[in-house]
């Protein structure tokens, strides 16, 4: 079973193939070509490197967004057309959630933030969660890994996002922390560059309130990767979350500017431009 994963929502495009044993091969763009020029070539290369034919791809996964509208569309339309012509199912992978796989050794809370312009970010907060599944009969229990969504992925004003994050984390601090432990929080994504001073400010305020946070910024794999997309895709595949290519849609997390303006104009009736 081979899943082809396509990532084009950020500055760097990549393609990966993962199998059921979680063996992954990835190709990344050199940044010279734009995503439209490079992604189909990368897919061609990785298929040739890893499989004997493109027909050996069983499922195709697209990073659905948020991110650059144009980038999302290049990936999603490529995946839709590939799957349509090959007659294969697809998986829509929520881009923000893929960051739980970017730093495999990191156990804390993953906070991806993308610069969404108009002084907003696309952001969320996630943690890998181990669920103990008790079997009804016998004494064997199983551990299942899931992704917990601490702050729901959406477009936020940075202040609003950080407020929600502190709210959710406050509860978390009470529940499972000993005095000596620090809650690990790591930020990812291209929003850091712009909003790092705001985050620092927020972190200082949190410390003054006595919150025990250890805040870091990802140094390795700070951006979207097809490897992480493929890992989440494999989990979604195992949960049976495949759909037909016709149902695969971008997740822009924001309306088109013109749509927003039209709605505003309709709300404040009579105001003509």
């Amino acid at each position: 079973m081979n899943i082809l994963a396509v990532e084009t929502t950020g500055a760097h495009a990549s393609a990966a193939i993962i199998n059921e044993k979680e063996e992954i091969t990835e190709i990344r763009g050199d940044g010279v070509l734009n995503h439209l020029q490079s992604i189909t070539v990368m897919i061609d290369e990785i298929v040739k490197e890893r499989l004997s034919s493109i027909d050996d791809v069983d499922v195709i996964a697209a990073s659905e967004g948020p991110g650059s509208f144009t980038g999302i569309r290049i990936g999603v339309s490529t995946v839709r057309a590939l799957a349509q012509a090959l007659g294969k199912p697809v998986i829509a992978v929520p881009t923000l959630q893929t960051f739980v796989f970017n730093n495999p050794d990191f156990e804390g809370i993953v906070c991806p933030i993308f610069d969404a312009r108009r002084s907003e970010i696309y952001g969320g907060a996630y943690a890998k969660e181990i669920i103990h599944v008790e079997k009804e009969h016998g004494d064997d229990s199983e551990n299942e890994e899931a992704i917990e969504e601490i702050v729901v992925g959406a477009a936020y004003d940075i202040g609003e996002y950080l407020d929600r994050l502190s709210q959710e984390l406050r509860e978390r601090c009470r529940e499972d922390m000993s005095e000596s432990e620090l809650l690990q929080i790591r930020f990812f994504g291209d929003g850091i560059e712009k909003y790092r001073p705001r985050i620092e400010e927020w972190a200082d305020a949190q410390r003054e309130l006595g919150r025990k946070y250890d805040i870091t910024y990802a140094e390795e794999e700070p951006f979207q990767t097809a490897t992480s997309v493929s890992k989440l895709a494999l989990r979604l595949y195992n949960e049976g979350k495949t759909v037909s290519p016709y149902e695969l849609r971008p997740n822009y997390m924001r309306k088109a500017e013109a749509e927003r303006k039209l709605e505003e104009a309709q709300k404040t009736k009579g105001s003509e431009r």
Partner: protein
Amino acid sequence: MLLRKSGLHERKMKNGKFVTMGIESSCDETSVSIVLDGREVLSNIISSQIKVHKAFGGVVPEIASRHHLENINSVTDSAMEEAGVSWEDIDLIGVTYGPGLVGALLIGIASAKAYSLAKNIPLVGVHHIQGHISANYIAHPELEPPFTALVISGGHTNIVEVEDYNECRVLGSTRDDAAGEAFDKVARVIGLGYPGGPLIDKYAKEGNPQAIEFKRVYLEKGSLDFSFSGIKTSVLNYVNSMKQAGKEIPVADVAASFQASVTEVTVNKTVGAAVSMKKDRIVMAGGVAANSELRRQMQEACKKKGIKLFCPPPVLCTDNAAMIACAAYYKYKAGGKDDLTLDAFPNLPL
């Protein structure tokens, strides 16, 4: 459907005809077509977004891109089903790679490249204007280059010297608005709505083309370029002065007078170009080529000069993929081929 499918397949195999899939998404039409030997259209599915963009009074690029993405795969299915072809039958994929809205173009290009990779089908990028001109090869089986072409639409206004299928030279272009753009803007100003072209055509039939004297902009002597923003401004000024005087706007007269101004300049420049280049044929293409008054006056002027005029039927005037498949076929026959790095060029020169 099944019968038709197998029947067609047999015929194709017997005749060994070349099957081209055309893909067009440069503006607000998502279209996929299957064409045999460059000229015989088996299907030409056009999914228009006019209704979507009506609320905004014109094409919104971001919204157009979003709709292209959601539509293109089922448009492809419909085109293949209507033509009765499978992926294995397709010999070539041709796709518009410019000029146009970049976000709209890339949906067609990304899809075309994915189809090409998945099914190992050769790929050719097509210039949108070349496509519009090629619509005439489909409509007129006897037509071959050379000739003079007028490409006139919402995005383009060009006089083109067509020497061969893949050899042409732009003699004149608009320096500001495209003719179709001026139609849309004027229609909005006089309250007709969107899209403006067909509405102005309709209202102009009831109006007097001499009622209001709008500027005829010919630019420098001998220039084959166009300028339509001046006419648009004159209409705007006229409408404002009427409004200020508290008078009712004579919509039909404004439509007719504006249309007469655009038509007169366009016809004179195009026929003049054909005469000076010693061409005895003129070909019209693009959405505004469907305008009835432009067709009538062009026909009249051509007759006087002994020039034969070719126009595609309205469905081939608007953006469609059959014309793209046709242009792709002739480009591929001449050795044109693109690889998977094919990019979108919003300002692609001819």
